Structures are given as structure tokens and as C-alpha cells.
């Protein structure tokens, strides 16, 4: 069970049970839809960008514990950050899960580094990255839904 305990850490299970910022925004300035056709996970990310700042960020959707926790922790970590900081976090998160020799994950804001255990479960990496692909699409103002494929 060692691997599983790494994957399903208490903080991840907590975000799965009680996802943060799991709501719709009143007046989003940007939004995007994400979809994983392999497992049917769907997520929408909404942003309220004011000047250069992510004043608010929220998500909705259905998915597994990993995608839900990743989305929840992402919104918690990035609220109030600048667009540039969010873009850097997207890249750091991707690198943590998919680079052959990832840099130190502790540079990531919030508790996001606990998702590093997903590396050991290659099939589940797309679950963790789906909210981040969706966030990137929202920041880039892309209207088309993004998919993991």
C-alpha cells in the first residue's frame, strides 16, 4: 500500500471531499472547459482577472479524486497571484509530473507539491494535469474545450 498512500495523501483526500473554490463566479472575465475523453472527466475553470491579478478563480465539474484535488489545490494556491506567477506555476506543475528529472517541487505555491506522488502512476498524470491545461486555455482566452488527448 506504500505507493497508494503516497498517491492518496490525507491532504489530497481532504481536497477531494471538500473541494475549495468549487463554485461559479459571478462575473468571470475568462473561462475554459477541459475534458478527458479516456475517463469522461470534465472540468470548467473560471477566472476574474483584474489588471495583472487573478482576483478570483473557481472550478466546477466531475472527476476522480486526483483531478478534483489538483483543481482545488490549484485554485487555492493561485488566487491573488499575478498572471505571470500563474503561468510559471502551470509550467512548474507540468515539469513536476512529466519531466524526466524534475526540479525541486517545493518551488510550487501552496500544497501542490503533495501531488508529486502521481508521477509513480503514469496513467493518472492526465487526471492531475487536466485542470492546469484548462487554466492555461482560460488565460490564453481559447474558446475551444481542451482535451488531454
Amino acid at each position, binding site marked *: *500500500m506504500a*505507493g*497508494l498512500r503516497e*498517491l*492518496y495523501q490525507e491532504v489530497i*483526500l481532504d481536497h477531494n471531499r471538500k473541494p475549495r473554490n468549487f463554485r461559479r463566479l459571478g462575473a468571470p472575465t475568462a473561462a475554459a472547459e477541459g475534458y478527458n475523453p*479516456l*475517463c*469522461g*472527466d*470534465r472540468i470548467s475553470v473560471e477566472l476574474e482577472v483584474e489588471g495583472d491579478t487573478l482576483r478570483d478563480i473557481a472550478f466546477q465539474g*466531475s*472527476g*476522480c*479524486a*486526483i483531478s478534483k484535488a489538483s483543481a482545488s489545490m490549484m485554485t487555492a494556491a493561485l488566487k491573488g497571484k499575478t498572471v505571470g506567477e500563474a503561468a510559471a506555476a502551470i509550467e512548474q506543475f507540468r515539469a513536476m509530473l512529466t519531466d524526466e528529472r524534475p526540479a525541486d517541487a517545493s518551488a510550487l505555491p501552496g500544497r501542490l507539491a503533495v501531488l508529486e506522488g502521481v508521477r509513480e*502512476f503514469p*496513467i*493518472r498524470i492526465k*487526471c492531475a494535469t487536466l485542470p492546469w491545461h484548462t487554466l492555461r486555455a482560460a488565460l490564453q482566452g481559447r474558446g475551444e474545450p481542451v482535451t488531454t488527448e
Partner: protein
Amino acid sequence: MNTDRWDVERIRKDFPILNQEVHGRPLVYLDNAATTQKPHAVIEALERYYATDNANVHRGVHLLSERATQAYEGTRSRIRRFLNAAEDREIVFVRGTTEAINLVAQTYGRRMVGPGDEILITALEHHSNIVPWQMLCEEKGAALRVAPIDDAGEVDVEAYERLLGPRTRLVAIAHCSNALGTVLPIDRMIEAAHRQGVPVLVDGAQAMAHVPVDVQALGCDFYAFSGHKVYGPTGIGALYGKAALLESMPPFQGGGDMIKAVTFEKTVYNDLPYKFEAGTPNIAGAIGLGAALEYLDGLGRDRAAAYEHDLLAYGTERLSAIPGVRLIGTAREKASVLSFVVEGAHAHDVGTILDREGIAVRTGHHCAMPVMTRFGLAATTRASVALYNTREELDALCAGLGKVREIFG
């Protein structure tokens, strides 16, 4: 029938892949609806063909080509007997069920279906028995009609009969649902279609290994299946079609082997079944499929079905007793499949935890997204049994679900 005499331990030894550990646990393979494992007999048939007989079929004058052709055509005869078709020429080799259905859609369908016509399917179909018809309907301005299912996952046969109308040109239905395990009452459905003069294609992908099939008794016009779901290799399957229908259809693909004579002005197409088999076929695959059907016949198809039925009943009882586990698909007639959801845990997480316990299951929409939508679900976990599974393996599945509750409880 006394299923105690089914010597499953001896049968398991015929499947070398089963004898291994994954993540430090004995492999419990319960993903048979996705693909079945292969017995030594199949693996050896492939090796023997490549080691001793490899040659192209239907062309060489030399001995190897003769042996390859004999083995290839021998499989055609075996499939004919297995399905109880009337003639060998009614058996067309294809890559699998998907190609078989596309073949019918692109030949029979394109010739017979026009604007305003209808094709009737059920709400239980696999994407491969939906999308080819949607493509055809779009091209022809025809409409796809869908017979509904109830909360148990059974087709509403009366609604189906009402949907059979003067514009229905073809019925395409699964013999057995891959997502829920429902065995459809296809004899009654075929009879109803025939009363209206409508031909019926049966998608037998999921049924072939688990439910006895007799195409003449059923009276179906087409029956499609994949070799890899009946203990054979991937990339090979067959389409059964009534000879008169196949004769009336234009060819599917053009190329070698499907012709009698070619000039730049005109090509004379070959006789059945070669008219539908353009290009060098999957000869090794066909020979492997022949070995798989021979293996299954040797064990006894009826005995295998009875043993699996007993396993399914046991699994249904065990899973139903676990708090928080809900079976999806509770039809009276089922085969092989236990589809379920676990309260508070997404199917994907269930699948990952079971995998670490050595248990292979499928999670997701099972290429039947409309079925998931019907039940208001994004995904289920699906355990599917085959003739080599045991009650102890279903016990391991239940213990694995205990781990799921430990983590997500």
C-alpha cells in the same frame, strides 16, 4: 450441469499469462470484456505458422502457400461451424467487429439507405455500433433511431417494435452489452424486424466467448465478432452474412485478391467471400483464431457458459453485499460483466487501488457513453469474467474494494 467438474486450475495452466505477479500480488485478470487472454494453443499456432508455413494465401503454386491457404481456409470452415452458418463463403475475414460493421455500413448501407430512411439501434450499443451508422445517416440524410433501455439495463422490446417502421432499412443490435452485460432477446427482436422485412445485423463482440451462437436458428442477416474477445489474437475477426445479401452488396475495399480480372477499363470482382477481402489478410491471426475456437470447442462452449454463469451469480451476490457498492445493469439475462459504482470513490480511483492489489478491471465509459448518460454516470468500474476466473478471484476483488473503503471511507 455439475460445474464442480470444471477443472479451472487445469484450465488456468493453459493460459501462461495468468501465472504472474503484478505489483507483488498474483494477477487477477477481470478485464475480459476488453480482451481475453490467449491459451498456449493459440500462441503455438501463431509460432508454428511463422516458423513452418509462412507464405501468402490463394496465390503461390508452392507447398508453403498451399499449407498457409489450407490453414487459413480451415479457420473459415471452423468459424462457419462455430456459428452454424450454412456455407463457408458466408464468412468474411475482417480486422474485428468494428471493421465488420463499417463494411456493412459502407456497402449494404450505402446502397440501401436513402434520404428519410431510418436505421434502428438500441441504447446499449458500443460506439462501434453507433458511429458507423451515424456517419452513414449523415451522408444519406437518413435518421438514427434508438430503442430505449430500462433501469435494469434491459431493452424495452415493445418500444423497439414500435420504432420498427416503413422507413427502417436496417436494425443493428448487440447480442450482449459490453458495458452492462445484458444479453438482449435478439431472437424476438430479429423476428419482429423480419416481420417488417428489415434485415438485422448483430454485434456479437461481447457474446461470442460467453453465449452460444447459432446464426441459422437466430435468422440474423449479419453477425460480427472479434477474435481477441474469444481467446484469439487481435486484428482478426469475421463477418457472417447471408449469401444472398453478400452477393447483392458492392465490394468494400479494392485491391488484390478481391478480383477475378483487371483491365484499365473494367474489373470483374471475385466470388464470395473474397470480394470483401482485398489485400493480403491477417493470415497468422486467422490461424490463431481457428486455434482459439478449437480450444473453446474442446472445453465445451455450453460448459464454459454454465461455469461463467455460476461465477457471475457468485460475484453479483458478493458485490451486492458490500455497503456503498451499487451494481449498474441488473438484467435478468446477463453474461460475464459486473459493472458497478462505489459511493464516494470515482471509478478511476477504484481502478488504481485495485491495480495495486493485482486486480485488472476496466474503469470509465466502456466505449458506451450513451449507456453512462442513461444512468447519469460519468464512469463505472467493470469486472468481467472468463472461463479461467475463479470464485477466489472475485473474493480478491471484494477484498480490494475493502481497501477502497479504507482510503475513501
